[in-house]
């Protein structure tokens, strides 16, 4: 019980760290700032571990901790409350654990920042951890929304961390606005929920015995479909799915550890967390689930295709993240909630690792991110190379690395739903394997293609950076073993067992069309073999990459290189019209139109004044005439109208 009573410390400590680092950033030395920043997260991590241990005990029931009434208006009560269950505790571990590693990594990575910039960085990073924790801890959707927007804010701040370059600011702004579009969906869903159910708290909604939702049995009722769709809009924004994914590649403008933490490991998985959290609702709305699955799948493939032709190492990873998130949504969409969450976890390990390793490379290359300018780094940066290699194996889904287990679980669930989903999913996986090995080969193999100065500069990163790499690499290797499929070992999927209470209720709605073990085994083997083949092919193809002078490309390749012109399309469809509309409304409609009318009234009074005074001709005769005419009019009114 005690650990759970300490739960408020988990988000509070990073917040304190944020305040200390932010306010005293010019006073404290960089080392102290770094230590404070990491330590608070580490303590939170320790508490999370305690909580996890308590949660994983037998007979644990979901805990609700209420602090105060946040909003209490009439019948609407939104308390400031935390909810602790298996899902929460898992996410707490991921966030604080990976977060801590990245904090440590950052101390070294950001060493060259200015004093105040360094403090600012850690302050933001702590603030992010705080927001993310609020997001997963919140006991109702409003608290979740607080964290939801909070992480968006931190993302904005960190992407635009080097604010002197307007491109970074543009990227940050884009991220925030695109997130906001999603947030609006979330917000509307909350409103709908409140107006339909009168509350936004999980406990009264999802309580398995007397929850409002739990007592509903009808599928696809309009309110629920609406709510789930709107929530999904929120998830699309936050987790960078089509059509709101374009901000994520741009978000790579931020420091690389940020990309690792926010744009790979944690924030972008908030959407998955949210849907997993609302699994009962979603299970009641198969229509939405189908939508989730299709959006996820399309995103997975499209992003993977785009990643094939990217030369910026971080962009490749970014598109890979989008693609992997697509997988997770596919998992959610086919009802494999725990598989999706499993993939969140393994993805957190290997993608954070990839980013950090890439960061190490970029660090070594003096800020260079273009892979065509790299090559042959494997010799000089052994640890980085090895860890990157492990992560690549993991993300490609090569057994027995962690990615294999989680991806396989999703794919087999997809097969159960429809073989088509499976085939497309495998296709995506093959693409993943290809571009990841391409990146690996281009970066670490072949000859060095950069400048001589860079070549001289290249070196292995310091321990503060490599240790987190090593830890994450270890996790990427072993992380999958908590969820070994039943095919191999009976009852070895500890992960599923652990999370099953969370998804227990929705499991009753899902049609249990499990794939037989044999089919599953065949599928695993086929896909693994295919992936390995493609991996080797991709590796070999780019092993000795030399930048070729402009080869005439076909239209498709060109489109891929230019990310299908999505950004440009958005620019033409939304940004430019919006600006033009603003100009039109301001210059023409408002100033000429509405204000024109207002001023026109004034002017017409003036005009009337000038005309009316002409009546005052100064001539007695005309005055008398007008008087007589007035008299006549009055006479006619009085005597001849009734």
């Amino acid at each position: 019980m005690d650990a759970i009573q300490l739960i408020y410390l988990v988000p509070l400590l990073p917040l304190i760290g944020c305040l200390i680092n932010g306010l005293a950033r010019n006073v404290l030395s960089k080392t102290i700032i770094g230590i404070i920043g990491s330590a608070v997260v580490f303590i939170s991590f320790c508490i999370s571990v305690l909580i996890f241990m308590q949660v994983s005990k037998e007979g644990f029931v979901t805990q609700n901790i209420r602090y105060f009434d946040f909003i209490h208006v009439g019948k609407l009560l939104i308390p400031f409350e935390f909810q602790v269950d298996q899902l929460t505790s898992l996410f707490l571990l991921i966030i604080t654990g990976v977060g801590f590693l990245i904090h440590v990594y950052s101390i070294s990575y950001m060493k060259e920042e200015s004093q105040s910039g360094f403090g600012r960085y850690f302050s933001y990073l702590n603030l992010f951890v705080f927001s993310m924790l609020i997001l997963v801890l919140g006991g109702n959707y409003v608290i979740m929304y607080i964290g939801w927007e909070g992480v968006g804010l931190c993302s904005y701040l960190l992407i635009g961390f080097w604010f002197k370059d307007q491109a970074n600011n543009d990227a940050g702004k884009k991220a925030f606005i695109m997130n906001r579009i999603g947030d609006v969906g979330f917000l509307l869903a909350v409103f709908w929920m409140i107006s339909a159910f009168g509350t936004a708290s999980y406990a009264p909604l999802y309580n398995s015995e007397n929850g409002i939702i739990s007592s509903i049995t009808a599928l696809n009722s309009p309110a629920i479909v609406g709510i789930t769709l709107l929530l999904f809009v929120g998830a699309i924004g936050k987790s960078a799915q089509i059509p709101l994914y374009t901000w994520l590649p741009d978000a790579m403008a931020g420091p690389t550890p940020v990309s690792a933490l926010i744009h790979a490991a944690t924030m972008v998985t908030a959407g998955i967390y949210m849907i997993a959290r609302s699994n009962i609702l979603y299970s009641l709305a198969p229509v939405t689930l189908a939508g989730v699955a299709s959006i996820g799948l399309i995103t997975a493939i499209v992003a993977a295709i785009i990643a094939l032709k990217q030369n910026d190492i971080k962009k490749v990873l970014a598109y890979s993240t989008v693609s992997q998130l697509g997988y997770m949504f596919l998992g959610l969409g086919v009802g494999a909630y725990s598989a999706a969450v499993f993939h969140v976890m393994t993805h957190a390990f290997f993608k954070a690792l990839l980013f950090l390793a890439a960061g190490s490379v970029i660090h070594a290359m003096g800020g260079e991110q273009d892979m065509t300018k790299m090559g042959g780094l494997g010799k000089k940066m052994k640890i980085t190379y090895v860890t990157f290699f492990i992560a690549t194996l993991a993300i490609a889904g090569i057994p027995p690395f962690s990615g294999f287990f989680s991806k396989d679980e999703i794919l087999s669930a997809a097969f159960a739903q429809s073989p088509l989903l499976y085939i497309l999913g495998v296709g995506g996986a093959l693409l993943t394997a290809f571009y990841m090995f391409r990146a690996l080969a281009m970066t670490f193999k072949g000859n060095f293609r950069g400048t001589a100065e860079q070549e001289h500069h290249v070196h292995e990163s310091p321990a503060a950076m490599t240790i987190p790499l090593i830890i994450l690499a270890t996790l990427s290797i072993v992380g999958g073993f908590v969820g070994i499929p039943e095919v191999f070992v009976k009852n070895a999927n500890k992960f599923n067992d652990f999370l099953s209470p969370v998804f227990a209720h929705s499991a009753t709605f899902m049609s249990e069309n499990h794939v037989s073990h044999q089919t599953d085994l065949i599928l695993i083997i086929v896909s693994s073999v295919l992936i390995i083949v493609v991996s080797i092919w991709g590796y070999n193809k780019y092993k000795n990459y030399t930048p070729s002078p402009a080869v005439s490309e076909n239209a498709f390749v060109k489109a891929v290189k230019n990310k299908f012109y999505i950004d440009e399309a958005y620019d033409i469809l939304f940004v430019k019209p919006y600006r033009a509309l603003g100009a039109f409304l301001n210059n023409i409609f408002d100033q000429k139109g509405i204000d024109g009318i207002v001023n026109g009234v004034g002017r017409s009074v003036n005009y009337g004044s000038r005309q009316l005074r002409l009546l005052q001709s100064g001539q007695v005769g005309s005055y008398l005439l007008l008087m007589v005419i007035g008299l006549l009019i009055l006479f006619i009114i009085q005597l001849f109208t009734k």
Partner: protein
Amino acid sequence: MEITQILFWFLSALALFGAIGVVASKNPIYSVLCLIIVFFAISGHYVLMNAQFLAIVNIIVYAGAIMVLFLFVIMLMNLNAETEPMKNVYMKLAGVISGLTLMIVLVAALSHSDSANTLMRPGTSVGLTENLGKALFNQYVVPFEISSVLFLSAMVGAILIGKKDVVKNRI
């Protein structure tokens, strides 16, 4: 036709003729003379209606005093010639039209009044000087006194306006 009726029509015609003469004649002197004709005609009407006092007062005050005053002023200004230039024709036309319209409207309206066909009783003694004098100094003594204020102010005013100022130094 009774004699009063004949007289009525005759005097009416005379009055209208005179009135039109006032308006139409170019020479101001003729206008004055026409106006005097009108006054006489109206006095004739008063006599017809046995309002003898008013008939006399009308002739003394109006035809006598007032019109002489007018005549004096006109002579003083040497306006006997046809000095008046043509007024704007449209203004004239508009004036005539609106005046006639007003007349038509008034006549049309009032001819429908309940009392339009009431007979008049001309032969009463109300209009005799004695009776009116009594009324004036009994019933109407207050207005009579008050009218003195009017005259006073008119007198002061006429003097004020007519007096030639001693040249005064103005800044």
